[in-house]
């Protein structure tokens, strides 16, 4: 059995230990593969391991991964060790393993987007994010579970079974990047890449006690990110610490001439601002993103968070984003509209599932009926309707106007304050199946995260404390603080998050009666 501390420390600490020669990249990768084999519910044989089907998963299997590229990861690690031994100059995080959301393309393994539609599809090209990671010698362990085509807030919409929350295996990890969140919280990868369209990184980060960031729209290339809503999708990091998250975003943020929406400006230095100091900064509390609908436990942690920021010398002021309450309905028109067009290409003609039928039109219909799950169908129908002639002005166009107003609200607010804060999610992690039949209740998870998505602003979630779930007296589940910053000032949100994190001292390791076991306990010590 490998050294359990290798799976329960930070990415930067692993990088340091590899640079110092204390441990090899291969040992680090093997430690993670061992734990994945033992706790994630995968069929651990062959060059690529596959997650078990939902019916075969055990009650304690996390099911973070859909595919584990075991052979490729070991080979990459060996190659890094060889080059390090040969004295080659390597990137600062060379050898650190990573989990990649299954919505980003990577050669050599299937990209399914959590859908039957793409079962077995092996992409012919690498996403720009995947290439950036490889260039940095970050070792991809595998592809993580997600709500089908990133549509959902619990990862229960995956065609391949639910992912469980490492803090309570009977609860959801959030979504849509629930697999990436569960991998990092569940000691199955030190950090991970997710994607965020309306909160799909921030909300699962909050529900699993992690740092998760959605960069400014256009900071990270979308090439190879299978589109849900093109004007909103953005890839970003999951990590156990703010510093790890900033380091991972630094690896993937750069201009890409093959993405027309990629920002050309030079990106801010994220690591330089991590000084643990927010004294004198003005931080705005968004009036509209609290109150009704937010659990009392979440509100209590949020109130304590404000006090903590104030105690660090930040000036806390209340700020209004007057159009934020319209953000959720606007989001649930714009995102499905784009999705209805983006997902049209899944027609059985060129790749993925095909259900044969006498004519092309019937084949398209049969394939889409069989390949898409109910939530995807629901959103395609909503989006198709919203774009239809006669409804376009009332729905898509109106929602676009609301979006413009929300962006203006953010600009106005950032004229007064340096950063904005709110709870990330109105609730702590909820029980598996508890909201699965109520789409509206599920959509309300995104109420606090969609405004920054619509405006394009950077936003992250940082662990703020623990709170009791209303349905489980005495439970202790993570709560996230959302920090939003001006456009292209991702450095500001990391700076605030870092200072807050240092003052909070949150222990990211899952604990509780139904939490995953972490081997570190057996050694009585955890490297942090």
């Amino acid at each position, binding site marked *: 059995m490998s050294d359990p501390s290798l799976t329960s420390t930070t990415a930067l600490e692993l990088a340091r230990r590899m640079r110092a020669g204390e441990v090899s990249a291969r040992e680090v990768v093997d430690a993670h593969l061992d734990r994945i084999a033992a706790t994630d519910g995968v069929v651990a044989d062959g060059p690529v391991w596959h997650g078990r089907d939902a019916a075969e998963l055990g009650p304690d299997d996390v099911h973070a991964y859909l595919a584990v590229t075991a052979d490729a990861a070991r080979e990459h690690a060996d190659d890094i060790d060889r080059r390090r031994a040969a004295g080659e100059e390597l990137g600062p995080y060379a050898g650190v393993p990573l989990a990649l959301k299954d919505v980003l393309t990577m050669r050599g393994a299937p990209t399914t987007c959590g859908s039957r539609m793409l079962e077995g599809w092996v992409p012919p*090209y690498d996403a720009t994010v995947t290439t950036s990671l490889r260039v940095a010698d970050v070792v991809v362990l595998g592809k993580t579970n997600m709500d089908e085509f990133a549509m959902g807030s619990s990862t229960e919409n995956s065609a391949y079974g639910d992912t469980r929350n490492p803090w309570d295996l009977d609860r959801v990890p959030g979504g849509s990047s629930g697999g990436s969140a569960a991998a990092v919280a569940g000691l199955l990868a030190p950090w991970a890449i997710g994607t965020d369209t309306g909160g799909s990184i921030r909300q699962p980060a909050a529900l699993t006690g992690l740092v998760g960031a959605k960069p400014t729209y256009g900071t990270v290339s979308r*090439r190879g990110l299978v589109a849900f809503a093109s004007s909103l999708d953005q890839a970003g990091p999951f990590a156990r610490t703010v510093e790890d998250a900033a380091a991972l975003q630094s690896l993937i943020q750069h201009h890409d001439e093959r993405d027309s929406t990629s920002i050309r400006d030079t990106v801010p230095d994220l690591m330089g601002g991590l000084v643990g100091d927010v004294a004198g900064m003005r931080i705005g509390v968004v009036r509209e993103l609290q109150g009704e609908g937010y659990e009392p436990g979440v509100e209590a942690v949020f109130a304590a968070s404000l006090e903590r920021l104030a105690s660090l010398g930040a000036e806390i002021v209340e700020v209004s984003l007057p159009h934020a309450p319209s953000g959720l309905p606007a989001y649930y028109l714009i995102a499905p509209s*784009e999705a209805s*067009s983006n997902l049209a290409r899944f027609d059985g*003609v*060129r790749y993925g599932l095909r259900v044969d039928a006498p004519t092309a039109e019937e084949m398209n219909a049969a394939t889409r009926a069989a390949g898409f799950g109910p939530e995807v169908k629901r959103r395609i129908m909503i989006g*198709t309707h919203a774009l239809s002639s006669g409804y376009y002005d009332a729905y*898509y166009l109106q929602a676009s106007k609301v979006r413009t107003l929300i962006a203006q609200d953010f600009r106005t607010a950032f004229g007064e304050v340096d950063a904005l804060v709110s709870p990330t999610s109105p609730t702590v992690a909820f029980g598996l199946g508890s909201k699965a039949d109520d789409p509206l209740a599920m959509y309300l998870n995104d109420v606090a995260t969609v405004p920054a998505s619509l405006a394009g602003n950077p936003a992250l979630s940082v662990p703020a404390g623990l709170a009791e779930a209303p349905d489980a007296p005495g439970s202790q589940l993570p709560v996230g603080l959302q920090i939003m910053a001006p456009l292209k000032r991702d450095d500001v949100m990391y700076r605030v998050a870092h200072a807050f994190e240092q003052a909070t001292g949150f222990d990211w390791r899952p604990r509780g009666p139904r939490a995953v076991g972490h081997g570190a306990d057996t050694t009585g010590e955890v490297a942090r």
Partner: protein
Amino acid sequence: MSADTLLPQGWELVVGLEVHVELQTNTKMWCGCSTEFGDEPNTNVCEVCTGQPGSLPVVNAQAIEDAILLGLALNGGVAEVCRFHRKNYFYPDLAKNYQISQYDVPLIHDGHLDVDVVVSDDAGEESIDRRRVRIERLHMEEDTGKSLHVGDTGRLHGADRSLIDYNRCGIPLLEIVSRPDIHDPETAQAYLRELQAIVQALGVSDARMEEGSIRCDANVSVREVGDELGTRTEIKNLNSVRSLGRAIRYEAQRQVAVIEDGGTIRMETRHWDESAGRTETLRVKESVTDYRYFPDPDLVEITSPADRVEAARARLPELPAAARSRLAQAGVVREQAAAIVGAGTLGWYDDAVRAGGDPQLVANWLAGDLVGQLAAAEVTLEESGVTGAHLAELVGLVADGTLSTKLARQVLDGLIEERGAKTPAEVAKDRGLEQVSDEGELRTIVERVIAANADTVEDIRGGNAKAIGALVGQVMKETRGQADPRKTNELLRELIG
């Protein structure tokens, strides 16, 4: 047939044309794939043009510049922002099941094209009528792939299976929509021909109808003069300028016949059957297709193309109409001017005139004998090596009597054989083709012919002036065609008296 005899008295034809032009950029509209025509199926493809998940389009700047160039040539206004929309519809050869196109703001708006149509009056006298066809818009989009239906007919109906070639998918395409300003088939044909000539002169496309790099659909309706516009049908599968004229003629007469029989015209798309010479229903448009256009979020608006517009204007070459009128002013007859401009041999004309060639004489060759001689030699003018300077020299040699027209043709053949490696004078000398115009030598021959044809001479003296032709023929025979005909005539008249 003119518009007057096309339809019964009191009826008017109304036609609007939608022309698609494939741009000959090196690479496709959104990716780096080649636009080469005729390559093996699915070899010029990548993740972008086959719509693989996660792929993103990046606009080809050259395509926008070419489109602006054509827009300026069509007297259109250029939009301040270039914005792309998605046109959503399912079709297997449309890789993404949406076409990136333009919607509310086309790149070019409100242009026009003036076309010249030959009309004849009641006395059969021909004249040129200049007609303006307004252009509503020119917008950019991407081409689709090509479906190949394997089965009995080659058409979708009854096919066993379909194959798709995505080589064409994503090639930049311009759609040029005219206003319904066309009222006879001839104007429609002249419009299409002129558009083709402009596109070729600009070098933005080879505009070959047979390869599909220019395609034309016609919206045809009829009405009683003074009425509102009638219901239109859209005619597809027009593979030549000739088909366009025939199809409009057929469809106009069909529509009038239907209405006069008490029927109504359905809004539908009709297929032109070239061999049967008729249109037939392809699909009925029961309702307007809802394409659910919305701005493509994968592309950003390209703002302030003012500098691009000026750059394009600066590289706008002389347009065909201007070239034709310049030639006409230089004395070239209209048909020849049109032929030279249409054939793309204007450069040779200009070079020849610059080298001192007489415009009309140069034009005679360029639009006349040279065309047939090149065809016979199976070479293009470019390949032949014949230059404008050669043509100037050739017409000079004819004008000063060194060569007869007939000899000049032989010199030209020689020039083509030599691929322009020699000058006309050198070819004439090498091949002994110079005309006998030395007066002494010619006089001797003429005297011999007169002596040998006493009867004919008597005939001429008796008043039959036409008989002199027979003697010219004899002289030509003696000189193997190298006698200067003008001088021969003069000498014969002088010596016969």
